């Protein structure tokens, strides 16, 4: 469990000016968040690379061709614009 003093030290180290009363208010929220994130350590993620984005498809291919905006692809045929 983090304490207000811990948060004060982090704030000082990172150059963040913040009143102690504000830190006292943030403390329970942050402790709950830290606990949630600690629980994520139990998941089988050690060997994974971070995803960074949820993008799934490949980059543009040489077949990509420009087209008019707002104009759909012909039925049954995809198109990269």
């Amino acid at each position, binding site marked *: 469990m983090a304490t207000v003093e811990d948060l004060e030290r982090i704030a000082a180290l990172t150059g963040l000016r913040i009143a102690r009363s504000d830190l006292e208010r943030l403390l329970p929220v942050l402790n709950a968040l830290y606990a949630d994130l600690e629980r994520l350590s139990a*998941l089988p*993620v050690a060997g994974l690379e971070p995803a960074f984005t949820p993008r799934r498809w490949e980059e543009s291919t040489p077949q990509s061709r420009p087209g008019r905006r707002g104009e759909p692809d012909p039925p049954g045929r995809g198109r990269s614009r």
Partner: protein
Amino acid sequence: MTDLVFRSVAELSGEIRTGALSPVTLLETVLARVERCRGLNAFITVTADAARAEARDAEREISRGQYRGPLHGIPVSLKDLIDTRGVRCTCGSRILADRVASADAAAAERLRDAGAVLLGKNALHEFAFGITTNNPHFGPTRNPWGVDRIPGGSSGGSGAAVAAGLGPVSLGTDTGGSVRIPAALCGVVGLKPTYGRVSRHGVFPLSWTLDHVGPLTRTVEDAALVLQAIAGPDPRDPSTLGQSVPDFRAGLRTSVARARVGVLADEYHQEMADDVRSQFRAALETLSALGLRLEEVRFPRPAEARAAAQAVILAEASSVHEGWVRERPGDYGPDTLDLLRQGLFLTATQYLRAQKVRAMMLKEIDEFLRPYAVLVAPTTPVAAPAIGQKTVALAGREIEVRGAMTRLVRLINFVGLPAISVPCGFGADGLPVGLQFIGRAMDESTLLAVAHAYEQATPWHTRRPPDPPEHL
């Protein structure tokens, strides 16, 4: 004329194309309605003069036979963090209150290309970081269905505007539910496309890896029409590159009978108020009657996904705002500042752990979704809370409003799937309830087809809120 402002884009465009309805007449009718409903506080800026010039141009082009398509001459508004050239873009903040955009955002540019008339900029939660649209700098936006209630957020002005007949379309953004929540609370349609489907160039970021641009409309067909106009690759937003754009409107005619629908029935997704539950059950009966095959399913690791998504949004938003949080903390509203400060106390390894969980979730969710056309759940577990309300009762305990309203939507941003909220009835206080369909990545066509079939089998999208009191 009241009837005109509640018509869909599909209906209006048919008349505009034939010359039966003038874009100038339509715009003036909508502007009068905006003035009549000023008390809702749905707009930060109304660009009436520029819109009049655009409407006249549209009328001239159409009369010459240069009809551009279904958005030509249609009044459209945008959440006030989407840039439009020469118009201030405040992000609902004091910090950017006087900032004037030098160029159109990609989505605004595409709407202009499609012939839409840009009507103004909608109110939002400060910097889009919240779900009430109770804005400390511009005042609260009010829900047309109950003016003492929030419209949801962060695209609350967009939801209120479309619901109240202040234009049939608004563009919003959705980082943790901010298109779908106001759509649900205001009784309209809200579509969050797949991550990367719509360019975010020119949109002020909240969280780069969670942000999506999407339309709020009165019908699913209109959402398809707007998505058609704004979707597609944009080299200025690399997340969009390489995609293929289908004909979304044509996809609405696809039969969905016999399609498999996963009903999210795990404990996490089953926590909802009684009035929401009864509307949700009725919606499932409608889907069954349409011939869809419903199966109860358990979303993989929802609580973990939610925690990881929370870390990602806090860290990324704090990074966007770091300089201002240090130099100008007094210029933020208290709730936004609290969230931004929380992000500054996260470590790099905690952020990266969350992104590793995302890598795992992406794999799991795609396998989980593969057998199903869509998943279905309520959009929010409760209807619209009162303005200023801090907590809501859920499953026998009091939960902070933000946590309750994002509970069923934020997970979907984390995995980047498309999702849509459609009206599914009214709760105990006569307030709208939303039904959320979640689709497979880049398969908005199936998502829209199922949502359209449901919508057409129910009367909810035809309901209109009462006129707001003259003096709010």
